[in-house]
C-alpha cells in the first residue's frame, strides 16, 4: 500500500509493530480517558454509545481501548452515572458489537475493566477502599474498608469481566490505577493504611495488583494481552501518598508479574497540581514515560498525558521515550486527527484546547461533550451530521468569531454558498483578543482561530474583513442572499453601568483585549466572570495595578466548573484584590466608587475602568434584516452571551440545519 505523505513525515508514529503477538498498524493507542455517560443507569450500552464507538473505531489508531466497564453487580466499582457494566454475560452481545467495530477499523481491541474504588459507589452512597480514609472532595462518597473476602471476590469479578470481554471478541484487557481508582488506593500509602498482607510495605501494597494481574492472565489465557495503567506520579506525596520512586517500584512489580504493556498516567483527582488542563504545557510529563522506559526496556510503555501533538509524539517515539502514543481527548476534539496526520493535513486538526468541558460535565453526572467537537455524543442524531443540503442556498454570516465560522464551515460543507462579513480586520472575533491574554497556554486558544483561518481558505469560504453590516450595506446586497445569520457576538451593556464623568475613562474589555484601546497603570475591572478575570490576570502580569469588582458574592460564576479553581488560584497568586457583592455607583476621574452589601462605600483609584460585564448580545441587526431577507437566524453570543463552547456548538448546529 502506498504511504500517505504524513506517514513519511511521522514515520515512528505510523510504524507498524508487533505487540503481544498482534500486528498493530501504527503506534497510536486510543486511551480510555473518559467514561462517556451515554449509557443506561443499569450498565447497558445505548445506540448513542454505539454510534460514538463506531467513530472511535474509525479513528485509525492501532490499538483502541474501550471505555472502562465496572465489574461488580453491586456497583461499588461504578463511578459514573451511566457507566457500562460487564459483571454478567447479559452484557456480552453489546460488547461484541464494539469489538467488531474496532476490528472493522483495523484496530486491536482492548476492554478496560474499571473498578473506581474511592470514586465508586455512585448509586450506593458509599465507596470501598483498603482503609477508611475520608474523601477530600465533597463530590464523592464516604469509604468503607474492603474485607479480605471482598478482595478475593473483587479480584474474581475482574477476572470474570475480563473473560467476558475476550468472549465478546476483544483481543485484550486493561486495568487502571489512574487517579485514585481501586487499584490506586491499594498501591498508595495515602489510602492504604492496612496492617495485613495487603498494606504496609510496598510489596504488600502491590499485592492486590499482582493478584489482579495473575487472575486476569489466568482467566483470559496467554494469547490475550493485559495492559496495566499506573501512575508515574500520584502528586499526592505531600499528604502521605506514594513518591515517584514508589510509583516506579509498583510499575516494575506490574511488569515482573506479566503486564504486557504499562500505561503511564499522572495524578489523582485529589492532587493539588494540574495534570491535563490547558495550564500544563504540552510535554510537561514526558519525563515520567522516559523513566518507565529506562526501567522497563523490554516492556512496551504507552504514554500521552498532556501530549496532544502528533509531531511531538513522533519525536518521543523516535527517541525511545515510550512505545505507544496513548491519546484520547485530542481524538474527542477531532476524531480525524490520526487520518489528518497521515495525510499531512495537521493544519486542519481541531485541537483539544484543554477546556475540560468533558470532565466538567462528567462531574455533574452529565454525558460528556467537547468544546471543540459539537457532534461528540450526537453521532446517532442526523441533526448533528454534515449532510448534503436539499436546497443549496446563498448564506451571509455576520461575524467571523467562533459561532459564525463554525456555521460557515458546516454550511459550506453541506453545499451552501457562504460569505462571512466581519467588521474587524481578522477572523476570530472576541476569541482573538482573549486568546492573547490567556494565562494558561495562549497557543491552545489561538489554534482555534488559526483553524478557522485555514478552513476558510481550504473550503473557499469568502470572508470579507473590515466590512460592517448596516442598513446601507444591506441595501447594496439586497436579494443577493437567501439566508442571513447574525453571529455578531456580544458587547458589554454600558447602560447598566453609571455614565462615566470623563470621556475615555470607561472602556470595554474586548477593546482592551484586542489592543484597540490602551489602559493606564491603575485599572479597575468591572465584572469578575471569565472575561474580566482573564483580562485582569493578564494586565496584572504585564505590570498594571488591577482591582476586580463583581456584583455577585463570588468571582468566576460563569467559568467552567473544572476551571474555576484555576482562575481563583491565579487571582490569589497575582494578588489581585477582588471586591465581591459590590455595585458601582460612580465612575469619575478620581476612580470608581462602589458600594458593598452592607452599604459601605469605597472609591478605587483608576486611570482606566474596564467594563467586562454584563454582556448583551448584538441583536440590533435582527430588526434591520427582518424584512430584507428570506431566512434570518442568530447564533452564539449574539443570542445569549455564554462563551466559547456554546458559540462553537450553536454555530455548528445551525450550519447543519440551514
Amino acid at each position, binding site marked *: 500500500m502506498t504511504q500517505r505523505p504524513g506517514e513519511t513525515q511521522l514515520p515512528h508514529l505510523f510504524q507498524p509493530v508487533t505487540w503481544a503477538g498482534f500486528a498493530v498498524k501504527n503506534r497510536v493507542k486510543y486511551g480510555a480517558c473518559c467514561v462517556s455517560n451515554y449509557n443506561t443507569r443499569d450498565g447497558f450500552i445505548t445506540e448513542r454509545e454505539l454510534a460514538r464507538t463506531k467513530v472511535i473505531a474509525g479513528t485509525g489508531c492501532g490499538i483502541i481501548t474501550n471505555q472502562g466497564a465496572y465489574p461488580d453487580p453491586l456497583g461499588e466499582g461504578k463511578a459514573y452515572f451511566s457507566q457500562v457494566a460487564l459483571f454478567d454475560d447479559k452484557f456480552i452481545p453489546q460488547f461484541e458489537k464494539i469489538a467488531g467495530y474496532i476490528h472493522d477499523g483495523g484496530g486491536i481491541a482492548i476492554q478496560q475493566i474499571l473498578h473506581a474504588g474511592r470514586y465508586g459507589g455512585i448509586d450506593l452512597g458509599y465507596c470501598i477502599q483498603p482503609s477508611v480514609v475520608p474523601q477530600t472532595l465533597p463530590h464523592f462518597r464516604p469509604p468503607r474498608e474492603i474485607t479480605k473476602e471482598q478482595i478475593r471476590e473483587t479480584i474474581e469479578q475482574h477476572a470474570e469481566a475480563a473473560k467476558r470481554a475476550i468472549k465478546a471478541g476483544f483481543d485484550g484487557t486493561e486495568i487502571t490505577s489512574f487517579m485514585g481508582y481501586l487499584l490506586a488506593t491499594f498501591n498508595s500509602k495515602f489510602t492504604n493504611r492496612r496492617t495485613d498482607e495487603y498494606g504496609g510495605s510496598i510489596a504488600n501494597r502491590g499485592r492486590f495488583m499482582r493478584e489482579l494481574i495473575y487472575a486476569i492472565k489466568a482467566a483470559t489465557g496467554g494469547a490475550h494481552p493485559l495492559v496495566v495503567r499506573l501512575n508515574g506520579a500520584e502528586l499526592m506525596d505531600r499528604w502521605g501518598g506514594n513518591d515517584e520512586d514508589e510509583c516506579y517500584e509498583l510499575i516494575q512489580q506490574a511488569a515482573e508479574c506479566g503486564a504486557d504493556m504499562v500505561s503511564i498516567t499522572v495524578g489523582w483527582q485529589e492532587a493539588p497540581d494540574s495534570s491535563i488542563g490547558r495550564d500544563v504545557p504540552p510535554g510537561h510529563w514526558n519525563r515520567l514515560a522516559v523513566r518507565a522506559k529506562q526501567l522497563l526496556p523490554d516492556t512496551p510503555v504507552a504514554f500521552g498525558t498532556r501530549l496532544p501533538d502528533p509531531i511531538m509524539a513522533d519525536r518521543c517515539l523516535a527517541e525511545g521515550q515510550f512505545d505507544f502514543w496513548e491519546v484520547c481527548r485530542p481524538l474527542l476534539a477531532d476524531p480525524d486527527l490520526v487520518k489528518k496526520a497521515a495525510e499531512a493535513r495537521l493544519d486542519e486538526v481541531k485541537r483539544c484546547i484543554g477546556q475540560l468541558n468533558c470532565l466538567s460535565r462528567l462531574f455533574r453526572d452529565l454525558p460528556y461533550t467537547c468544546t471543540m467537537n459539537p457532534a461528540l455524543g450526537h453521532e446517532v442524531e442526523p441533526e448533528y451530521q454534515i449532510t448534503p443540503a436539499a436546497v443549496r442556498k446563498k448564506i451571509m454570516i455576520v461575524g467571523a468569531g467562533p459561532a459564525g465560522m463554525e456555521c460557515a464551515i458546516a454550511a459550506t460543507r453541506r453545499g451552501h454558498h457562504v460569505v462571512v462579513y466581519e467588521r474587524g480586520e481578522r477572523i476570530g472575533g472576541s476569541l482573538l483578543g482573549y486568546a492573547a491574554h490567556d494565562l494558561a497556554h495562549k497557543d491552545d486558544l489561538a489554534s482555534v482561530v488559526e483553524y478557522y483561518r485555514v478552513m476558510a481558505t481550504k473550503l473557499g469560504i469568502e470572508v470579507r474583513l473590515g466590512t460592517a453590516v448596516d442598513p446601507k450595506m444591506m441595501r447594496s446586497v439586497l436579494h443577493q442572499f437567501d439566508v442571513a445569520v447574525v453571529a455578531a457576538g456580544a458587547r458589554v451593556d454600558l447602560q447598566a453601568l453609571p455614565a462615566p464623568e470623563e470621556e475615555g475613562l470607561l472602556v470595554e474589555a474586548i477593546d482592551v483585549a484586542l489592543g484597540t484601546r490602551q489602559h493606564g497603570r491603575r485599572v479597575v475591572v468591572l465584572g469578575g466572570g471569565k472575561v474580566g478575570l482573564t483580562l485582569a490576570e493578564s494586565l496584572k502580569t504585564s505590570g498594571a495595578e488591577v482591582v476586580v469588582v463583581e456584583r455577585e458574592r463570588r468571582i468566576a460564576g460563569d467559568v467552567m466548573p473544572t476551571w*474555576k479553581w484555576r482562575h481563583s488560584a491565579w487571582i490569589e497568586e497575582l494578588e489581585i484584590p477582588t471586591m465581591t457583592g459590590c455595585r458601582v455607583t460612580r465612575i469619575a476621574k478620581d476612580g470608581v466608587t462602589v458600594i458593598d452589601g452592607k452599604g459601605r462605600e469605597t472609591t478605587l483609584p483608576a486611570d482606566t475602568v474596564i467594563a467586562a460585564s454584563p454582556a448583551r448580545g448584538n441583536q440590533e441587526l435582527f430588526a434591520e434584516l427582518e424584512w430584507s431577507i428570506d431566512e434570518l437566524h442568530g447564533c452564539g453570543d449574539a443570542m445569549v452571551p455564554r462563551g466559547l463552547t456554546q458559540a462553537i456548538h450553536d454555530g455548528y448546529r445551525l450550519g447543519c440545519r440551514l
Partner: protein
Amino acid sequence: MDANAEPRAALDIAGWQALLDRHAAIFAGMLPGSRIGLLPEEDFESPSAMMLVWEATGNGIVADYRPFPGFEEAEVDLLFVADGETLGRLHDRANPAPLADLKRKVRRRETLLYVVKPRAALLELGYEEFLDSMGLAFMGACR
C-alpha cells in the same frame, strides 16, 4: 479540658473562640452537634494526637480540644489537617482574614480537608454557608 492534653505549640482556646465569634455568621446555619475538626499535621500519625474541635451548640459555636482517635472515631463532619504555621495564622487575632487564609491553603492543598460526611449530609447539617465560603462547591476533580 485537660490543659496537658493540648498539642505541642498549644494555641489557647480563648483565641480560637474569638475567631469563631468574629465569624459567627459563617457557622450560624450549623445544627447543634455539627463539628469541624482541626488537626496539626505533625500530630497526624501520633496515637496521642489532639484535635481542635469547633462544635455548634445551638447557642453559637464553641472551640475545644479533644483526642483524635483516627478517622472512624473522630466524630467530626469535616477535618482540616494543617501545619503549625497555618494554625498559628488562623488563631492570630491580628490576622484580618483568617478564614480566607485557610481557604487559600485548602485550595493549594497545603492544608488537607477531609470531607468525613457526604455532601448531602453536610448540607442537611447546615454547612452550606461554610462550604460556600470555603469554595468547596466543586473543588478538585480531575484537572
